[in-house]
């Protein structure tokens, strides 16, 4: 399993440059928002957390559709399906590798981008923390979508559409918790705990669904 993790990480660095595309897209998102809302710093800092969350969500979608496709095209997926290692584990490890290479850079970059949005320290911290906890959920859901798409001869963008509706709860609780951290009346902990719960649930359901879809897909 470590072998798989290392391989996927290595691949993501050697080809495609997943990490940077995500971060750059993220930066582009943050760079244009001020043009919409104008130079109103207060407003910017208020919508900062949700914007960062939306940016992270969309950036995670880039490249997620090829999570299994590359392995299928060169025949590696066949061999993975044949091993004794439970397929769920294989999928889980691939998700972890994808998260490490594609989403973690976003989480790390988010405090920096938060500065552009004129967010205060507390809010920056809360957003980064919720992103850290919440983005894995997106990856796990995405894996299920990618697995369904790989089973389709004409999958493609379909993944993002299958996946986006399912990410809505994550977005609600993530952005909600980040927002609550700075607003006094609304408590931070409940949405944050929901977020953790969502991630844990999806960490189980996502790989399971993906494994099922992959088994059904082979052709």
């Amino acid at each position: 399993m470590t072998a798989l993790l290392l391989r996927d990480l290595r691949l993501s660095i050697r080809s495609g440059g997943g990490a940077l595309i995500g971060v750059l897209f993220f930066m582009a998102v943050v760079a244009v928002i001020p043009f919409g809302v104008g130079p109103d710093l207060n407003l910017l800092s208020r919508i900062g957390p949700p914007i960062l969350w939306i940016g992270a969500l969309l950036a995670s979608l880039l490249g997620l559709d090829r999570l299994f496709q590359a392995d299928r095209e060169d025949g590696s997926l066949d061999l993975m399906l044949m091993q004794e290692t439970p397929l769920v584990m294989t999928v889980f490890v691939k998700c972890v590798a994808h998260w490490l290479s594609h989403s973690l850079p976003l989480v790390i970059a988010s405090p920096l981008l938060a500065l552009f949005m004129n967010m205060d320290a507390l809010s920056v911290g809360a957003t980064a923390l919720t992103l850290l906890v919440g983005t894995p959920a997106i990856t796990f859901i995405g894996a299920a979508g990618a697995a369904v798409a790989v089973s389709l001869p004409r999958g493609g963008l379909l993944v993002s559409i299958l996946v986006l509706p399912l990410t809505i709860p994550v977005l609600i609780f993530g952005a909600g918790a980040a927002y609550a951290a700075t607003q006094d009346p609304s408590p931070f902990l409940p949405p944050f705990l929901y977020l953790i719960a969502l991630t844990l649930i999806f960490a189980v359901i996502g790989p399971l669904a993906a494994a099922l879809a992959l088994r059904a897909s082979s052709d």
Partner: protein
Amino acid sequence: MRFEAQALSARRGEDLLFRDISFALSDGEALVVTGPNGSGKSTLLRVLAGLLPQEEGTVRFVDGTEDRPAREACHYLGHRNAMKRELTVEENLTFWAEFMAKEGAAPGMDIDEAAESVGLAGIAHLPFGYLSAGQQRRMAFAKLLVAHRPVWILDEPTAALDVKADAMFAGLCQAHLAAGGMLVAATHQPLGIESVKSLVMKGFEYGEALA
């Protein structure tokens, strides 16, 4: 050990491709599948490897522990090499060696040793994408050596190989059989392996198993 298929039939799209294919291999036996293009050789091998669902029939690998799926006892070498162009040969082989390793099973060959036995010891540091077609195929073959599996399922293994590599390949297969392994291969060219069973596919008209 026995590897056996009983009354297999399979479908591609909506059509039944073959029906009622049965055979049994025991230690050291090989089966060569031949037939015209599109007759369902690759389909049969993928069914044996558990990569396509059969329509009817069973595939079993019997070795004391009955309950494991047959696919876990098999190596599958398809038309595609299952190697990453971006990684070096060595990284590729190491990955598969580790990923396919089983606890308590016979260990496979060493990476260097495997590269040497397919005649490519010197270029293991190159990215896989830099190799020539035949070298890529040889490396894909080396993958079978780095982890032990009793059954090898090979789909046109000698495509793109030169004469010397053909002989080397036949030697490796013989060694595998001599060590009690089994082998199913689909091919259009004689493989140079001795004493094999053969199966001729006809495609849509349903194949016949010959002893």
